């Protein structure tokens, strides 16, 4: 279950490959046009939850020589499935809302 926008955006950001928290935060900010700004504490809390739910996993660091304190996270199969499900659900919701709005404007 993806019950918050932060989790949704974090998972989206990880679709491009394993990433470390600061980059995740930047990617999310870029993807949302600066509307979702993730600070360190909040992001780590969310990552912890996603890990516990099995939607992401810790990944091996791809580059060498970078800050060794960085941990990389990757989306899991389960994470992709959950994201797909959530996207479908949202899509369904958007469709329902659109058609309702369209019907309302015709009246």
């Amino acid at each position, binding site marked *: 279950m993806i019950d918050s926008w932060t989790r949704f955006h974090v998972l989206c950001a990880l679709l491009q490959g394993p990433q*470390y*928290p*600061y980059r995740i*935060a930047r990617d999310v900010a870029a993807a949302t046009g600066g509307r979702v700004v993730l*600070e*360190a*504490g*909040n*992001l*780590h*809390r969310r990552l*912890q939850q996603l890990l516990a739910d099995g939607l992401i996993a810790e990944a091996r660091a791809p580059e060498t020589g*970078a*800050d060794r*304190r*960085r*941990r990389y996270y990757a989306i899991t199969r389960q994470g992709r499935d959950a994201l797909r499900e959530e996207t479908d659900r949202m899509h369904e919701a958007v469709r329902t809302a659109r058609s309702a709005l369209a019907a309302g404007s015709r009246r």
Partner: protein
Amino acid sequence: MSAPAGTAPASVRAARRLYRAATILLPRAFIAIHAAGLQAFFDEAVLEAHAAGGPRRVVRRTADALIDLIGTAGRLRGERVRELTVAARLLPREARAAARGLRRARAFAGGLLVTLVLGVGVGTALFAVVHAALLAPLPVADEDRLVDVVVHPDATAAAMPASYPEYREWRDASRTLGALAAYGRTNRTATGLDAPVRVAAALVTANFFDTLGVPMDQGRAFRPEEEPAGADDVVILSHEFRVRHYPAGGSVIGRTLRLGDRPYTIVGVLPDGFRFDLQPAEVFLPLGLTLVDLERRDSRWLGVVGRLADGTPGAEAARAELQAIAEAGNPVTVGSAAGGAPGPRVAVRRLRDAIVGGFAPVLWLLGGAALLVAGTAAASIGTLAVTRAIGRRRELAIRAALGASQSALVAAVAIEFVLLGLAGAALAAVAGAWTAQVAVHLLPDAIASRATWLAGGVPAGRLMLFALALATAACLPAVAVAARDLRRAGATGALRTGAPVGTGRRPIRGVLVAAQIALALVLLVGTGLVTRSLVRLRHVDPGFAPDRLLALGVSLPVQGYPDADAVARLYRELTARVAALPGVERAATIDEMPFTRDDGQVEVTAEAAMSGVEPVMALIRSASPGYFEAIGLAVTGGRTLEATDTAERPAVAVITDSLARRLFPDGRAVGRRLSLTRSKGRFEIVGVVGDVRMGELDREMRPAFYTSSLQDPSRSVQLVVRTGVPADRLTGDVRRVLAALDPDVPVYGVRTFAQARDATRGVTTRRLVLFPLMLFGGLATAIAVVGLYALMSQAVAERTPELGLRLALGASRGGVRRLVLRQGLVAAAAGVGAGLLLAALATRALGGVLYGVPALDPVSFLAAAAALIVLALGAAASPAARASRLDPIRSLRD
């Protein structure tokens, strides 16, 4: 991307430090995982901010980050609280499940309960006794303000009671004390009841009960005008005396009680539970002082108890004041007479310390011993817990596979201990309270009287709370060990695959069993040391031959025996008739028998003393002719007391060797004179005898001298009889003899000299220590041996395939037996080794209890070690035999 810390701008460095400090807001579990990640994140962010907008941007970025940190901390802790709430809601279900599980694991549940009841019960019993003796309030009002006052006559002398003039000066002049009362002890014979009885009486000032803050149950306290002799024919009864002798109930106020030769009017009855001091008085009388008594400074017999005035900070202020008053009132002191040495020293202590102070170290010592037992129990529970965790391996693995979190698994293990711990604590509290009740009867009288005085005892809630705390302390390490193992194995690791859990477990169990053996050894060594001290002490040479000696108390009333002659005549007659009884070898009288007290000394000096000979504090005893012969005391010079030393002849004295040495360094005592420095007493020394233990066995023998009972008779004496006749029969015979002389005189307090010796404080204190120490040592040893047996049985069961394989491959049965025995012996030897080291440190605590035995006494240490090794071999023998009888085929197939 992040620059090394050293080259970063100052603002960035400061921001980093601030951020790192702020991370302590987060829960520890979260920090443990994410500290580095958070810091890395922030470092990168703040560097970027600096690059984009300098320090100003850094400040804004840092502020945002800190606000985020605070919010996150709040949210994380909120989640934790929610988790706990969910767990609490699951608790009843879990508890029911655990109860069901325990019903299947009876051996574990039973073992844990028994261990808890033993280990915690002992501690709780001791707590009950310590509570009664040390912690419970005295039966007086506001006891913290009450103080006890004693005097040391010179710098080195033991504390003594005060004289009446001293008391009066303190009372009248003191401003630090709001009230000051005095009391003395005596005995009276109550007649007119069913039979004459000897009662312990206290003589008290009129303000005594007021000072203590004790209200009367019936009637009133004494009035000041009842203090002088002649007006003092009023009595206050203790609750116990009233109940025993006036069982009919109703008021006894105004009734008459005959004490000795006088009628007393009962004016008051004390409330139930009031006892004062260690030897409770049954009746209380006014001081009844004559004009002479009022001025006698050399008569020290008054205990003094005061209540600090409102503004007085503590006992020390009172001490300084009373000291000043004592010096002003009594300028001529021993010290100044002897040339400048300090005079009397006043000591003021809290009343509680004065009463129970002497026993406190002993009881704390026992508390330490009880803790050792609890420690043994804790180690034993630890092994049980590990064994139980192994038994539940499969179940826990299934739960883990089904998605139970680690904390849920730990909770499932812990809840069993919570259930058993609660049950064990409740049982232990009951068992402890019961043991304490029994133990009170086994304690020396001095302590037991106090314990029953506080028989209301420990509030049940407090006892339960203590048992619970002790049970928790005993179970906690076990749960911690089990939880650690679970965590180490991990929900995804060994548990899930069903592989043997934590290979490190058997060593842990071995260590725990060794720890039990070590603790048991400490207690056994202590038991050995105290036993040997007691044996040594009881075999101290008292200076005479105490076997076959009996003492009977006799006390003559003033009525019928108005003067010294009458008293001397009756005792002479009594002694002669008793000596003629069949089976009696000798009979004599003495005013205070040996082993009873060695305080109350008088100052004596040699007449025409040689230069350099100072006055000596000596004990004075009034003995009848034949006394030294009766107790078998060696005469080292001159003669003993004789029937011809009558009142008409010059006063004579027989002195002890130590007094002779001190007063007459030239060695010629016989024929010279001895005088009391504070009164007119002068005696001609006719003989020198050996020293005798008048009081404690473990103290130096005090110099003493004996006067003749014909010249200086005492109304109350001990009739000393050397005889092979049993005490009961002789008492009957003596009663008949005495009744023929005077039917109104009671015989009381019959005891053998050996009994008197065993009633000295030195012996009773050590007995008091020894009894529980033996009990604790036995318990701890039992727990340890059972623990070792369980460990070995378990080990054999777990190693069955391996042992079977060995047998199949040709190992001899004896070899297998030795293999198992050796394993047991290793654990035992490790425990004994550790225990010996521990005991070497711990026996120091015994300090004052030891007598004639060094704290590192090799006999005690080796005996305890040998006993435990033998017991350990015994415990391992049966599992070893089982291992050697294994059927190789079957054990391999299974």
